[in-house]
């Protein structure tokens, strides 16, 4: 198609040349120049007419030749298109070809039951996430995730990935969720429950977890027994947990992941994480987080769309520096999940966590979760949650429900 464009200016020039000629002729016919006889003028006009005629013929043949060439070219192109074994569908316009993959995910959450602090609203469009993902150039790809909440718009993540740097260093630069533990890296819509566990709320970053602007480098550690990946990250120090008082007070995250298949259906996934940085409580107060996680998965390949089982536990310790000395807190959760039909999954979660700023206060909870997935692109989920808050006399019983729905580009399945 692009070559046709090359032809057009040539044709256009030829045509405008033809149009310009009669104008020259009219000027010549308007009157004889001073100092020339009538007969010589008549001769010159005749001469000009002949020249014009020959020029016209010349242009006519040239245009005919060009038209023939154009026709032949178009024919060849049509033929080539017809011969192509499996043409890709035509994009609506050339400018759209390089548009990123776009998706929008709605996350609607409802809640019922008494809750001391108010808890989640009764009916809430918790967030809409927009994602834009594409390859940047031969060296990188970029991913943007923008969340639109009831009162705020935020860049949940936005980073460039260099997948093929020398030394096997998978490098990301931008705003990212910290590689701390298993759940922290996941967006709300990929979690297997509606809320985040108490340990996330109390110790590792609150409702949204840890996310910051920085640089991440991950490398595989070669060995013959298992998948071993080490990740190192440097952040600005601007998250729920880490707040840098000065420019030099960066926050650091280290993560080690070990994975091994135990046969084709079963695998184990172990991780250890550390995060360190200033917490902004005083000039030089710092917070250190330690985490361990373990996951056991079972999914028989022949029945992979009908059943799976997952057991996961995560523990996190925090040491928060304050003016009065460090505060130590610990928390964790355990989660079991079983898919009992193609569209149904049941889950059970146990929560137990101290509060980072008040280690004496320990919250406990349990949840039962039922998920129904009509298709890959939507789900309906209910969660019964019973929580014993350290500073509330009686346990709190709540029922949460969620509608998740995605449109647009087909994303990768989470693992």
């Amino acid at each position, binding site marked *: 198609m692009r070559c046709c464009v090359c032809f057009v200016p040539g044709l256009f020039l030829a045509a405008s040349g033809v149009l310009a000629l009669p104008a020259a002729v009219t000027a010549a016919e308007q009157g004889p120049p001073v100092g020339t006889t009538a007969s010589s003028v008549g001769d010159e006009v005749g001469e000009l007419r002949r020249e014009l005629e020959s020029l016209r013929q010349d242009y006519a043949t040239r245009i005919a030749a060009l038209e023939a060439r154009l026709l032949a070219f178009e024919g060849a192109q049509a033929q080539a298109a017809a011969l192509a*074994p*499996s*043409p*890709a*569908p035509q994009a609506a316009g050339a400018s759209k070809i390089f548009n990123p993959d776009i998706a929008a995910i709605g996350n609607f959450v409802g809640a019922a039951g008494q809750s001391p602090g108010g808890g989640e609203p009764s009916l809430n469009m918790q967030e809409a996430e927009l994602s834009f993902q594409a*390859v940047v150039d*031969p060296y990188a*790809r970029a991913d943007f995730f923008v969340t639109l909440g009831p009162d705020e718009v935020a860049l949940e993540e936005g980073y460039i*990935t260099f*997948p*093929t*740097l020398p030394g*096997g*260093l*998978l490098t990301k630069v931008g705003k990212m969720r910290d590689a701390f533990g298993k759940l922290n890296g996941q967006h709300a819509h990929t979690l297997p429950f509606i809320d985040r566990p108490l340990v996330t709320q109390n110790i590792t970053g609150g409702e949204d977890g840890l996310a910051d602007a920085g640089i991440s480098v991950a490398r*595989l550690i070669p060995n013959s027994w298992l*998948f071993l*990946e080490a990740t190192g990250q440097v952040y600005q120090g601007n998250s729920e947990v880490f707040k840098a008082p000065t420019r030099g007070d960066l926050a650091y995250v280290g993560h080690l*992941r070990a*994975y*091994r*298949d135990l046969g*084709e259906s079963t*695998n184990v*996934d172990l991780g250890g994480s550390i995060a360190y940085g200033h917490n902004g409580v005083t000039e030089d107060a710092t917070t250190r987080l330690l985490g361990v996680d373990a996951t056991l998965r079972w*999914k028989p*390949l*022949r*029945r*992979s*769309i*009908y059943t799976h089982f997952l057991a996961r536990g995560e523990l996190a310790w925090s040491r928060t520096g304050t003016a009065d000395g460090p505060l130590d807190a610990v928390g964790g959760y355990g989660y079991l999940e079983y898919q009992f039909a*193609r*569209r149904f999954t049941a889950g059970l979660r146990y929560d137990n966590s101290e509060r980072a700023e008040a280690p004496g206060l320990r919250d406990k909870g349990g949840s039962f979760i039922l998920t129904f997935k009509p*298709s*890959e*692109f939507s789900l309906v989920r209910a969660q019964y949650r019973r929580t014993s808050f350290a500073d509330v006399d009686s346990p709190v019983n709540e029922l949460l429900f969620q509608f998740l729905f995605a*449109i647009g580009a*087909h*994303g*990768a*399945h989470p*693992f």
Partner: protein
Amino acid sequence: MSLLSIATLALLASVPPAGAALNVVASTEDLADLTRQVGGDRVKVESISRGYQDPHYVEAKPSFILKLAKAELLVAVGRELEIGWLPPLVQQSRNARIQVGADGYLDASLTARILEIPTTQITRAMGDVHPLGNPHYWLDPGNGRRVAKAILDKLSRMAPADAAYFASRYADFDRRLGEAEKRWDALMAPYKGLKVVTYHRSWPNFTDRFGLDVIGYVEPRPGIPPSPGHTIDLIGEMKRQNVKILLVEPYFDLKTPHSIGRETGARVLVMLPSVGGEKEITDYIKLFDYDLGLLVAAIRETGAK
């Protein structure tokens, strides 16, 4: 000293000129076998998915990242069949050779004959439709040959010293496949136009090639599990058109197909869409031998027409 240099020379001579065998990863066992047919002992091939597994829902396990990290060539089915799991694996492989668009990435669908390419607006109301056409194209032996040819071209460019070896292996495969096709055509000749029902839309290339007429699917829409209303409609339609054959992929539940079979008298056949679907299906030609053998035996027993 001289002994050592002779030993070194002998060692060098014993190494094939193009170096060690090419490390190839294929996304399915079908592509792995087609690569083996052409590459012989000059390639080392591994498959990510197993033949008895639903290729739409393979898990992106980190152990696959390790395989991809070492690969010199990745052969993929394409047409978005692997969209849920291959892109994150390739991205995390840290392997520049096999990134999409690089020399070591072969989309096997590019030279294949693809059916069901949408010509009108599609939406997910139609289920999990594949916008680039039906990706189960390897179930036409003609496409197997085209893919093998694409693999031949790719391997010959990557290991020019072995090009003649690859070419002779391809020629041999082409000949054996041609002979098998004659056998299969003869086997299926009496049953041209036979009406069948399949579970998922996995078989358009197969049924097109062997002259079967698919009148319905157990899934109401691609990727959507059977619903009672659709199943009742399908039973009515099968009775009306006297359909006696129901093809099911090995990774789907047999409950609904069996109840349809009881209602209509149709035979439920667990047909294999891929090499490795059963232990004895070790290569591409055996896959068709198995499926067509199963099909013809069932047609004869049920007296289907």
